[in-house]
């Protein structure tokens, strides 16, 4: 098939194009992963379906119940929204870590999810914040929890003709806080050895009433570490709680040895980084009380 470039204006046009061309087509947003993969010969789609002319893919809506982030919104544009940064500082600090300023001008949280790297920075923060993915396909819409969107390195739940439209994040209560920390051996422009996203809620007494801990780069997909979250519930975020959550995160991590670190090292870092991330999220939650 000959190369093609399509710019649908509606979701229906986009899903029809994706279904018609099947594996020969690929959705295209910022291109910061896809064009690199094409240049490296890892993917060779004939038809690129540019999603950025579809209004819903570029929307950002901060509602009283939920925050809707269009899948193709550039991370640079998200960082410019002061209210979004105030409400979800952890998600934004994760998004900000994706590449250089030049990459930020094009990269999107939706693309970060769809690329399905185990080390994707924004995904642990999305999972910790209980984000839901709105997926459109030839048969209509369906919702997929961010925690279940990736099914393995490079693969997602998206079927033929389907595309990710937006991420919907429950609006955090004033007494909730989130945070994301990534460990890399340098200060910028690198891929996570371990990444940790945390969101938690503290009541007026400082008791943790809700928590979610998600670990990146220590498994084939992001790990929703429920045992770590449970270790925080029902009491204050004190030294004992931090030790419990750290231990639970170490246990939940299922890393491999690779050029960025050994499995044993990654397990250790997962514990340390989880403790630090919980401390930041707890401080933010306490500031809201």
């Amino acid at each position, binding site marked *: 098939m*000959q*190369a*093609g*470039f399509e*710019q649908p204006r509606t979701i229906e046009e986009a899903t029809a194009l994706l279904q018609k061309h099947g594996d020969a087509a690929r959705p*295209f947003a*910022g*291109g*910061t992963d896809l*064009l*690199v993969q*094409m*240049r*490296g010969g890892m993917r060779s789609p004939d038809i*690129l379906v*540019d999603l*950025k002319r579809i209004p819903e893919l570029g929307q950002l809506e901060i509602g009283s119940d939920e925050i809707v982030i269009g899948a193709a919104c*550039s991370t*640079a544009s998200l960082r410019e929204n002061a209210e979004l940064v105030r409400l979800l500082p952890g998600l934004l600090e994760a998004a900000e870590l994706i*590449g*250089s*300023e*030049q*990459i930020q*001008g*094009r990269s999107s949280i939706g693309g970060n999810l769809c690329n399905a790297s185990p080390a994707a920075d924004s995904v642990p923060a999305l999972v910790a914040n209980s984000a839901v993915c709105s997926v459109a396909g030839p048969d209509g819409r369906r919702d997929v929890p961010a925690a279940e969107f990736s099914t393995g390195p490079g693969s997602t739940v998206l079927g033929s003709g389907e595309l990710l439209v937006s991420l919907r994040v429950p609006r955090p209560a004033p007494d909730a806080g989130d945070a994301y920390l990534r460990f890399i051996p340098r200060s*910028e*422009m690198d891929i996570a050895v371990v990444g940790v996203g945390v969101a938690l809620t503290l009541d007026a007494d400082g008791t943790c009433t809700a928590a979610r801990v998600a670990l990146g780069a220590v498994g084939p997909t992001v790990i929703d570490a429920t045992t770590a979250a449970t270790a925080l519930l029902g009491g204050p975020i004190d030294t004992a709680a931090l030790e419990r959550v750290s231990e639970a995160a170490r246990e939940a991590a299922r890393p491999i040895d690779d050029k960025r670190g050994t499995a044993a090292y990654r397990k250790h870092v997962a514990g340390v980084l989880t403790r630090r991330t919980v401390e930041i999220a707890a401080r933010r939650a306490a500031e809201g009380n």
Partner: protein
Amino acid sequence: MAKLHVETSVNGEPTEFLCEPHTTLLDALRNDIGLTGTKEGCATGDCGACSVTLNGRLVCSCLVLAAEVSGQEVGTVEGVADAETLHPVQQKLLEHAGLQCGICTPGVVVAAKALLERDPNPSERDVRFWLAGNLCRCTGYDKIIRAVLDAATEMRA
């Protein structure tokens, strides 16, 4: 397949060209439009040599498709100086010797100008982080950083 006809604006000038569907903006700028100031380094979004602005936002032109810029506004290094008068960022890079081989320089100029338009008074740390996506194998960066900070000071005066 027929080539795609793209009508766009480059440095404020209406521009049209023909391209293949998967041609990058970088290749269109250099080969079809004849603006060779934008350089190809890595072609994978790592080095920043091909930095341009797209609707005012800093991007790598190697990771933008030429067909995408239809109806959009592209800014390249050729649009930075005002005729014979260099932009303060360009002038200060010369004065501080913030370049040697010069391949990274157009990207550094475009990126630094984009920073100073957003933040007229960046800290040294701000400049270093903003330019983290512009690789330079000659200068060791220090002269570039000093030049950008000096340009900021002059532009605020």
